[in-house]
């Protein structure tokens, strides 16, 4: 038998690496599993809060509450006004907002491609699906400080009460990009994010494709 100490054999690095992997992967697995319920609960909460936020101004106009109090009374307000639904042929996560018997609109979980990866947004539409009540982007991988500014309020505010169907042609509205800071002269002009033209175009394309799909599920883009 050889007298070579185990530390100097070729097996030692393999065994050492294996042990280190087991220890660290184990620690990570335990930590992840123990934190998973909290992470998922937060994700669900923030998702539902976003849906509520899109309809909060409409709910406030019909009730004696303000949008802030409606948001503050989550989850009760969410359970009272928002319901997950399935519209025929539309393979998107869909929600309906109603105040009593009065239907306020629908909310769809839409997605598209950005510059660096996929992006996902919640878009609220009027009951006739022709006007956007608002939009919130909840997942994107764009450049921080540039493309990632599509999640900022000034950019998203442009989509509030925005017609998405051209009343003359009946087709999806074609949007025109204008420089950031320039005042919009018509409701189809959207201020782009400076230094992030591709990302802004991606948002516009995502909206156009998805609105087209919602109106023509059989002809539009597939999920």
């Amino acid at each position, binding site marked *: 038998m050889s007298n070579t100490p185990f530390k100097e054999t070729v097996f030692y690095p393999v065994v*050492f690496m294996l042990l*280190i992997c087991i220890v*660290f992967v184990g620690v990570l697995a335990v930590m992840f599993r123990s*934190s998973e319920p909290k992470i998922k609960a*937060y994700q669900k909460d923030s998702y539902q809060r976003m849906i509520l936020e899109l309809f909060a101004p409409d709910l406030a106009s019909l009730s004696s509450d303000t949008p802030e109090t409606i948001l503050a009374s989550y989850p009760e307000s969410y359970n009272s006004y928002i319901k997950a639904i399935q519209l025929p042929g539309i393979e998107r996560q869909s929600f309906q907002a109603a105040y009593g018997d009065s239907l306020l609109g629908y909310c769809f979980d839409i997605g598209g491609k950005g510059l660096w990866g996929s992006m996902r947004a919640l878009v609220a539409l009027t009951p006739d699906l022709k006007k956007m009540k608002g939009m919130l982007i909840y997942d994107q991988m764009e450049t921080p400080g540039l493309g990632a500014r599509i999640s900022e309020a000034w950019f998203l505010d442009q989509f509030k009460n925005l017609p998405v169907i051209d009343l003359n042609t009946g087709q999806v509205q074609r949007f025109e990009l204008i420089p950031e800071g320039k005042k919009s002269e018509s409701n189809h002009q959207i201020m782009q994010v*400076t*230094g992030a033209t591709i990302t802004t175009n991606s948002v516009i394309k995502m909206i156009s494709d998805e609105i087209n799909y919602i109106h023509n599920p059989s002809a539009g883009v597939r999920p």
Partner: protein
Amino acid sequence: MTKKQIFITSAFTENSVWRQILGICSALAVTNLMMNSLIMGLGVTFSLALSGFTISLIRNWTPRSVRMMVQTLIIAAYVIIVDIFLKANMPDISKQLGPYVGLIITNCILMGRAEAFASQNKPLDSMIDGIGAGVGYSLVLLLIGFIRELFGFGSIFGIKVLGAWWTPWSIMVMAPSAFFILAMLIWIINIKYYKPKG
């Protein structure tokens, strides 16, 4: 060296960015906003301190042939721990930090300190060295972030300090501006504090 000397050497005298020219990628990428710079700095400091401690703790048992794999694994594990902790306990900060957590793993300062210091020194000294390197790195990031955010957005930590009269300099928001600022910073510090050799 005393613990204080280790910290000062790591943070200032042998600063990772202006002296060793490490961590340049992230210094260019994340410094357009001061908040991003601060969060990145804190994440790197935490990972540097704990990975240095752990690598030093097992240095006598780590085979030389696989030491870099072990160091990478330990660094990655700590960065993932930071990520999971933030997601579970500070979800808002985690949301802002999102893309930067992954960048910490690829930051060459961590491998640099692991290889140059932690693998040859005691655990506590390695931890102090990691904190020092992290503080030095954070200071550089915050300084570049201050200049870029002030001129690029007219704000500091998101608070508007320059009024509506200020026309933002778009170049400051883009990565090339960090090249110029970082180069000037290294130039000024070298001229002022380091004498040329020879």
